[in-house]
């Protein structure tokens, strides 16, 4: 072979061969890939609202207990309930209570946090308080101008969340009673965006988890409205008087045991409750009486 053979041709061929080898080995491996259960492995699936808590708690849990593994996925409360009752996962997380038809599935409920939804407006907005039905009418598009609820003569800037949002789900159920949102409302995919837009626009109104009304990341401020005469804060939520609130659940099939119990106890420990839960914008379950 010519020693000067090396350049372009064989380089290209070599690269092609490497790529082909990678590809075929991956295909073979991919076809054979399946989730084989490690014995000390926990699967947690469900609500995207609960996901941040579950994920960070899982990380901390695995750091504290090497050798044990917790896999967390966020697909939705309904999917989570379904997968835990069918045995696909060990824990199903949910941001909603069980539906009547789900009552007979043999699921045990562990409450892990409280979530209150604050209705927020710009701090410069003269409106301070609304009733639940006014809020519903605003978000359904029936009330379109602030003057109809005692504010300035300005068109209401309606800010909604995306349909994947657990907060939106809860808001629909609790406030709208299953009604439809105004389709012309802006649909934003994240809490921070809703907060930011409301903080910057005098006519805006939106809803976010109470824990995010105050933020350490930005100087922008929003105002949480008094609903039906109850101001949203930890006490009213814990007492159950603030109307727009819900519980976050871990569901298990039967009483939790073994690794499942260890993880749940870990999530209920004060460290996780005071740091992770609050960071995620929720309230520790210990603050509540529900």
């Amino acid at each position: 072979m010519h020693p000067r053979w090396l350049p372009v041709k064989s380089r290209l061929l070599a690269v092609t061969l490497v790529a082909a080898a990678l590809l075929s080995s991956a295909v073979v491996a991919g076809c054979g890939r399946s989730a084989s259960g490690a014995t000390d492995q926990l699967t947690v699936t469900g609500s995207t609202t609960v996901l941040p808590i579950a994920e960070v708690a899982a990380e901390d849990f695995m750091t504290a207990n090497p050798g044990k593994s917790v896999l967390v996925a966020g697909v939705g409360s309904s999917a989570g309930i379904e997968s835990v009752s069918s045995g696909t996962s060990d824990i199903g997380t949910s941001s909603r209570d069980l539906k009547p038809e789900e009552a007979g599935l043999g699921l045990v409920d562990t409450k892990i946090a409280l979530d209150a939804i604050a209705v927020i407006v710009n701090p410069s907005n003269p409106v301070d308080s609304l009733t639940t039905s006014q809020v519903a009418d605003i978000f359904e598009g029936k009330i379109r101008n602030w003057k109809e609820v005692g504010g300035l003569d300005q068109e209401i800037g309606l800010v909604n969340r995306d349909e994947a949002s657990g907060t939106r789900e809860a808001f629909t159920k609790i406030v709208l009673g299953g009604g439809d949102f105004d389709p012309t409302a802006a649909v934003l995919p994240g809490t921070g965006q809703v907060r930011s837009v409301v903080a910057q626009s005098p006519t805006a109104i939106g809803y976010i988890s109470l824990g995010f009304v105050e933020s350490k990341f930005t100087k922008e401020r929003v105002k949480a409205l008094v609903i039906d005469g109850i101001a949203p804060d930890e006490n009213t939520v814990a007492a159950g008087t603030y109307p727009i609130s819900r519980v976050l659940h871990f569901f298990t099939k039967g009483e939790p045991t073994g690794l499942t119990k260890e993880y749940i106890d870990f999530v209920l420990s004060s460290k996780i409750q005071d740091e992770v839960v609050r960071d995620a914008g929720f309230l520790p379950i210990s603050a509540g009486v529900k």
Partner: protein
Amino acid sequence: MDTGSDLTGRDVAPDMCADDGEAMRAPEPPRKSTGLTKITRATYLKEAALQNLFLLCACVAVAGVALIFIFVGLKGWPIFAKIGLLEFLGGATWYPTKEHFGILPLIINSLLAMSGALLLGAPLAVGTAVFLSEVASPKARSIVRPAVELLAGIPSVVYGFFGLVLLRPIIAGLFGGLGFGLLTVWLILAVMIVPTIATLTEDALRSVPEGIREASYSMGATKWQTIWRVLLPAAKIGIIDAVILGMGRAIGETMAVVMVAGNARVIPDGILKPFLTLTTVIVMDMPYASGDHRTALFGVAIVLFIISMLFVAAIRVISRFGKGMS
């Protein structure tokens, strides 16, 4: 239009596709010129095998298009089967939770977004291209051309992020409302398509022979008259191609749009009202869509793919039409 190079090996800009560059293809090795070259069977087989290998590589592109049609089409097919093509494309309500899968408002919104972006961006781009090709001093060129290339390289998320954190509040402050809507989208998209249109327009202008400019000046025309009455018409086909490519880019853009459009599933009744497009509906709904909804999203993807292929076909048709004329 011969875009051949000369013996100094100067840079050649290929046409937008219709010409397969016959002029540039290397000549075949000499056959029996001196009788010294004996092509052995082994060499011949090797050469043929190599050629076929290269052909295979080239056909990967065709395979790609076919695969996209197959995989995305198969996943999206059930929705067409279920509600019919007409109902899908022409249905006036997109409300998946209530089983409404009409994407007409999305199509209209995509077209609205694209049109405004084009109206704002094309003149800006063509002006920049004219600047680079005809007006700029080498020093100015050394600033503007890299700027255009850099604009092309900025990822669309960064554009969207910029739109979200800076542009939206400014628009909201100036015009009231939330700042989401067509106006903001137009501004961001216009800047995004400038590099696409400008680079191709500059190529088109550069391939107009120098002699034509000299002839125009020698007749007493000013620079602007030359540009407006001679050069731009001469480069017309290339510019149209560039603009169509920009249109394709604008209508296919997702990340930048989703952050500033507001994503309301209706046709907006103003340029400051939120709206949803063919591309943003996919990125907003995909995370949670299941069943028919998910199938419908794949259906939207196929529609987008066909639209982009139509743009490519349009460019070919126009180029061939233009060739016929010149």
